[in-house]
């Protein structure tokens, strides 16, 4: 293998192993920063050694062992860190070799370690964008520049978010523990929200040129599936996975060859991915079997399932979708959910009924700059032949969206309001 190939192979192994390596080190060292630093040191060592020795049979164990040895070396050399050495020394049992480490890693529930890590990266003390960056970095193994590209912010911004986040957690001396009981569900909700935020950014990018970013969806889906394996008894995790699998099933039909968005009603359903639909429906069934049918993500999953089951747009069970949204709206008190309910009501009970609901949302402060409110209102007005008003609303919606494709799409619809009906 050429050096480039070997390096790529090692980077690939790193992506697979890094979350577990860091999670194991976090458990031992109780510090995200130190864990990541040592894990990176181990990666550097791998890049130096593995081209000669080949990739070891258990790369994870090799990386952890190397990280521990590096920690000991560093702490020995740095006399100022003597206290740290005492603090951590017991965890860095110097006699460990790779085989012992492999055995230790197999015994310890690596699941617990990963959970500890994800609850740390999604800690309520951190602002949401910091949770996203930290989770993608430490659990997703994404590099800073990759995260920056995904969210269209400068690399330095992401780097800063991560540094500040680690500092916040260190200062607060956050205990790296898996929460229990009711706290678990609460904290888990925050984790699921982070994952879904990433998914959504890929599913309908809030800014920039591309309507969708499938790689981000895939990232979020993998994280969700990992979580489903870590906390299989929690129905909302399966609900979230169901939602993401079902939405992802439509990715290939959402965008045309030119990258233009295609609305749900117009999508070629033959392009919907049946494999993902099957997986999504299975995950939903799992959530429901666990008694979680009314979880917020499970409800959204159930709505997505309604679309998935309809062979064509006409066969959509809009009445069911409307009632699912009604439950969701009550539970979340979310105006965005209510807006979605209005769309479903328009389909099942007539456009005027939908418009009435949308008009009731007109003064909602949360929706003041939400482009979908005027967009939906515009669509209803268009269907009611109130084209002049529709045009104004489409233009307003276009001015509010940060996504180029969506803006163009909305302006196009505005222009069509002038055409003869």
């Amino acid at each position, binding site marked *: 293998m050429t050096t480039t190939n070997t390096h790529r192979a090692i980077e690939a192994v790193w992506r697979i192993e890094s979350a577990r390596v860091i999670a194991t080190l976090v458990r031992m060292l109780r510090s995200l920063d130190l864990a990541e630093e040592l894990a990176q040191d181990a990666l550097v060592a791998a890049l130096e050694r593995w081209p000669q020795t080949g990739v070891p049979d258990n790369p994870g164990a090799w990386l952890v062992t190397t990280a521990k040895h590096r920690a000991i070396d560093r702490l020995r050399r740095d006399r100022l860190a003597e206290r740290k050495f005492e603090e951590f020394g017991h965890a860095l049992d110097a006699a460990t070799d790779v085989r012992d480490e492999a055995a230790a890693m197999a015994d310890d529930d690596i699941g617990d370690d990963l959970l500890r890590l994800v609850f740390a990266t999604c800690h309520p003390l951190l602002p949401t964008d910091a949770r996203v960056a930290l989770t993608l970095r430490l659990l997703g193994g994404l590099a800073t520049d990759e995260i920056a590209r995904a969210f269209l912010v400068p690399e330095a911004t992401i780097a800063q978010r991560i540094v500040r986040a680690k500092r916040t957690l260190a200062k607060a001396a956050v205990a790296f523990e898996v929460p229990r009981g009711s706290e678990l569900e609460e904290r888990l909700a925050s984790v699921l929200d982070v994952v879904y935020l990433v998914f959504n950014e890929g599913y309908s990018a809030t800014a920039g040129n591309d309507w969708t970013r499938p790689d981000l969806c895939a990232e979020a889906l993998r994280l969700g*599936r990992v979580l489903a394996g870590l906390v299989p008894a929690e129905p909302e995790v399966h609900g979230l996975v169901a939602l993401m699998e079902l939405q992802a099933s439509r990715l290939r039909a959402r965008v045309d060859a030119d990258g233009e968005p295609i609305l749900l009603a117009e999508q070629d359903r033959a392009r919907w991915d049946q494999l993902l639909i099957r997986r999504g429906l299975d995950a939903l069934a799992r959530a429901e079997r666990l008694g979680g049918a009314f979880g917020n993500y499970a409800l959204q999953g159930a709505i997505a399932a309604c679309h998935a089951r309809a062979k064509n747009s006409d066969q959509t069970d809009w009445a069911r979708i409307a009632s699912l949204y009604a439950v969701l709206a009550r539970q979340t008190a979310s105006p965005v959910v209510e807006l979605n309910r209005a769309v479903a009501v328009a389909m099942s009970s007539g456009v005027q009924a939908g418009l009435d609901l949308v008009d009731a949302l007109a003064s909602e402060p949360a929706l003041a700059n939400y482009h979908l409110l005027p967009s939906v209102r515009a669509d209803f007005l268009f269907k009611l032949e109130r084209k002049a008003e529709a045009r104004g609303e489409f233009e307003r919606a276009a001015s509010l969206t940060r996504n180029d494709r969506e803006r163009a799409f909305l302006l196009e619809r505005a222009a069509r309001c002038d055409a003869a009906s």
Partner: protein
Amino acid sequence: MRFMVIVKASRSSEAGVLPDAGRLAAMGRFNEELVKAGVLLAGDGLKPSSQGVRLHFSGDQRTLSEGPFTPTGELVAGYWVIDVRSLDEAIAWMRRCPNPHDEDADIEIRPVFEAEDFGEAMTPALREQEDRLRDEVAARSGSARA
């Protein structure tokens, strides 16, 4: 990125020899690793080609023939569909797979076509047809959020 990972057949898989308990356990653990990492989408083992048939296409002609087929090395004995970030990652994963057969074995990793790949197949005529259809539908139907 999706990849189909194809396990090529071997003399023993074609003979219908089932893997021993140790091999089954090892393969089971590997599959579990793929699931835990969130990358496994699908996977199955195929019965020997003696239990399958082939359809040969020539113009309008269809000819059916029964297995077994040769050469063995070209046959498919099993597959996985995985979703990973790159071919390198797919390779890294499959290096850890226990040997699927008693003897030497081959595993092929093939990228699956994604939507973007079909872009060039759109001829201008097809595109025009699609545009017209889209305009028609847009004029009639709603803007339900996809």
